[in-house]
């Protein structure tokens, strides 16, 4: 089994609508029922982000996201799948249910 990150991309800044919320819940339930669910969550807007650099002595805090971009990650799933074909199918379903583009990326193997 491998784990994959499905990042939800959004360029509108709009929160999920009520219908989208319901669809996402349905998808989450399906993932749980199939034993493919690891974790999932929605994220607050990029404006609420803080960048922290603690590499060198006192940590430095910077307001805002580390990358200014039109498209942001607004949520994610971490799923478990035997191989990429299953992960692609789930990512396509996730995209459909949350009504946004998603990016699928494998976690590093051990």
């Amino acid at each position, binding site marked *: 089994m491998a784990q994959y990150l499905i990042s939800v991309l959004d360029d509108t800044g709009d929160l999920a609508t009520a219908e989208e919320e319901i669809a996402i819940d349905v998808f989450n339930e399906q993932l749980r029922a199939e034993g493919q669910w690891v974790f999932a969550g929605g994220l607050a807007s990029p404006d609420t982000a803080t960048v922290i650099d603690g590499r060198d002595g006192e940590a430095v805090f910077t307001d805002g996201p580390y990358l200014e971009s039109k498209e942001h990650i607004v949520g994610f799933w971490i799923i478990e799948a035997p191989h*990429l*074909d299953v992960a692609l199918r789930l990512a396509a379903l996730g995209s459909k249910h949350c009504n946004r583009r998603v990016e699928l*990326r494998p976690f590093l193997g051990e």
Partner: protein
Amino acid sequence: MTDVGEVIARAHREEWAWVVATLARRLGDLDIAEEMAAEAFAAAVERWPVDGVPPSPGAWLTTTARRKAIDRVRREARREEKHKEALMLSDAPEPLGAIDDDRLRLVFTCCHPALAMEARVALTLRMVGGLTVPEIARAFLVQETAMGRRITRAKEKIKAAKIPYRVPSHEELPARVTGVLAVLYLIFNEGYLASGPGKESVRSDLTAEAIRLTRLVRDLMPADGEVAGLLALMLLTEARRAARVSASGELVALGEQDRGAWDRELIAEGHALVRARLASGQAPGRYQILAAVNAVHTDARDVRDTDWSQVIALYDQLVRLDPSPIVRLNRAIAVAELDGPEVALAEVDGLPLEGYHAFHATRADLLRRLGRSEESRSAYDRAIGLAGNTAETAYLIRRRDQLADP
């Protein structure tokens, strides 16, 4: 010595894909499978001249490659557990669909939609076709180092993202097959117009392999029109192979070929496939249209009997599906036969195909027929500089040298 060299070369042509595919299933790792296959062939070069050629070269190569893989796993203690796991997996193959052919799995893995199209083509040519990186680079007008990186990156993605080594499920098949067909057609063309100086101008092993794999895909999806179309296209093209290169190794243009040397059996099979597709009443895709074009050509006993208006009508249909400059170039070649070289030249000029030898060869021929020798000569020069196929180069040089002096 030479004999053994020939045997090894033949084993490479015939057994490469099988060795890689078998190892990939057993080892669960495409990259190691390729590397070990290459090492096994290197061992054959060393051993066969001394020990003699084994009775079953394919089995010898697979066994040798597998032993090398096991040796390597033992050497790399740190990664041992992981590979042991992979090796164990091989003893319990996953349940299969209708088709159990390692080479077909290899094809579907190499043609996976999560890979960029150019990576799929390169990987399939390397893994299934057994072409070297320089040969692939040449076929796609790409630097060798860039092509090497492309293949390496694709293999890394297969491993990291766990692209599976399997024939897709029934529901996934139609979409996955489209990608496979594009790749198979490119392999066929690489065999039909082989690149590389000093190379055989036609590599029938590759055309035969492309046809074999296309037949397999057709067995899997007998109702798919495009699979049938591609198979028909390959058969009707392959049928003309013997007539296409002269005894002196020069390309023979379609209009000058000895049509008696065409393979009637392949033509009959190709025509039957095209007729069956026409009878289906379904809208044809690009391969079915190209097969129909080739059916028109192979229908004519003499080049003068060719139904050029039918050919142009088919290309019009194809342009609507795929308005690419190469399709328009081929349409223009037919236009030259029906409306004359001047009309055709107007359609050819301005196509963005400066780096494509056939563009310059077509212009050269049209200019020659219009008596514009000087321009024709420089177009031939451009074409000769770009053509990678020995037979084609010989043909172009003769044509150029036959031009009237200015």
